[in-house]
């Protein structure tokens, strides 16, 4: 499990952006997650190596944040917001529907690895509540009537 020489060059640039190279740990963890899907212990060791930091430090940082996955997630990671603004406009019903449709719960993935689900806190899109996100894309003003089409459309596009 190693970074390519191009990736190592990117990492060097990232480190140089900051007064201290340690600050590049978050962008490097993102690179690692993009490449290997989630932050396994092997990934932690690889990142620790290139960052010249103790593995315990890398693990500590990775586990602090919800967006670094602690286990494999689906190819399409569906995030449904159920915080107040979304809840007021039906976010919980949407979450329950997605749960049932794919037979998975919070932070679980389907057996074939295509879909995973996460109940998320406010995504900063409350004006478009209720909202879901799939991977990096936001879908606002969804409803029980449209959520299936939104998901299918995203899967088809990808």
């Amino acid at each position, binding site marked *: 499990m190693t970074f390519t020489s191009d990736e190592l060059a990117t990492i060097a640039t990232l480190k140089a*952006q*900051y*007064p*201290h190279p*340690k*600050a*590049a*740990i*978050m*962008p490097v*963890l*993102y690179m690692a997650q993009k490449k290997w899907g989630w932050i396994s212990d092997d990934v932690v060791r690889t990142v620790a190596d290139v960052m010249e930091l103790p593995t315990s*430090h890398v693990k*500590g*940082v990775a586990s*602090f*944040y*919800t*967006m*670094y996955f602690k286990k494999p997630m689906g190819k399409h990671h569906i*995030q449904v917001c*159920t*915080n*107040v*603004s979304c*809840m*007021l*406009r039906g976010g919980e019903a949407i979450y329950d529907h997605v749960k049932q449709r794919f037979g998975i719960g919070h932070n679980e993935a389907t057996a074939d690895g295509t879909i995973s689900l996460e109940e*998320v*806190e*406010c*995504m*900063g*899109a*409350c*004006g*478009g*509540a209720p909202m879901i*996100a799939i991977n*990096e*894309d*936001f879908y606002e003003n969804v409803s029980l009537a449209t959520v299936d089409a939104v998901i299918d459309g995203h899967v088809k596009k990808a």
Partner: protein
Amino acid sequence: MYTAPHIVLPQIPNLHRIDTYLANGGYAAYRKALSMTPDQVIDEVKRSGLRGRGGACFPTGLKWSFMPKGNDKPKYLAINGDESEPGSFKDRQIFESNPHQLIEGILIAGYAMGVKQAFIYIRGEYHKWVNMMEDAVREAYDKGYVGERMKQTFGGDYTIDIVVHKGAGAYICGEETSLMNSLEGDRAYPRFKPPFPANKGLWGMPTTINNVETIATVPAILSMGADAYSKIGAPGHAGTILYGVSGHVNKPGVYELPTGALLTDIIQNVCGGVPGNKKVKAVIPGGSSMPPLRGDEIEGVRMDEESLKVLGTHIGTAGIMVMDEDTDIVKVTLRIARFYHHESCGQCTPCREGCGWMEKVLHRIEHGDATSSDIDLLLNVASNIEGNTICALGDAAAWPVRGFILKFREEFEARCKPQRNYISLNVVHGRRATADTLTRSY
């Protein structure tokens, strides 16, 4: 209805491109700043009456004046775009529609404080908006408006570098000292204050942290002058503000209006009223941590910090959450408590344990499994968190719970059993304390 200019979000198509921004007078405010001394710029911002838009309303010019003078060590500016307080979604609009005004604000603030490096910290979920901001910064570098080439573009010696830094999903990173730890590559635990960031901030160096909207407002102040700016909106809390309205209104969204706008005007006229013409039951005026107002007390309420303070609440992030008459208040309170429990970093016992406790007790109330003494227990736990923690997340968790109970106690009572169920009490006896013993021992 409101004649205040749109100065943070002007309605100009393609303003996110630097060419459009320049064609509309962009970077002229920075040139104006350069014709003044750094102290004069700080003074101008002080006189404008600008107060921070990140939630605490701290006077911006005053904050800048805390930064030590001289260039014997590096100084930093961190722009807070973590925007994770439920109900807040206005900084996103700046990344999307007017990123260059944020960059120009950074140039002005940097010049005023002698900062050579700035960081824009954006919450990780905002992938698309991180990219937009990065594109804008890249464009500014390419055209010589940021970085070394500023010397040719603007003359003089001053330059500043800007790095966009993406968070990874933790509300606490919006707290300024947590943000600094996150940026430095550590776990994002808040730090004790003092030392304050202006003395010992990022990498131990003097640092100023400002909200995105705060800094994006600065070029407008330089352009129109402090006097003109200070006359917009409410006295004591000047300017325009980006109200983010969500929940039960027909036209939710971000609206730039003067401070001190009437809350009923915002709901009824700007946002088209409540769906189905229902009555308003409750309004959270500034993001989920702010104590709510009852629907029957919003008449005449003005949306500025001084007016809201009198009513026991705050403008916060100006994220207005509107709830209609059918809203289940207990459920809303539980959802908010669950959020803060989830986001507590766990460093301080009152916050870590208290937030968990509040969630559990509220859950019990929601499930009809509690008695009135549990409501008093909640108030008690809230008071024990408040003021006893390293950072203000503790207060942010305590305020809404107390606020909803004080304003809607009858709804909580209605969910409680009139009497304690002694049979189930006996069952739990010895396994956990009851509400009665807990409240008494405080």
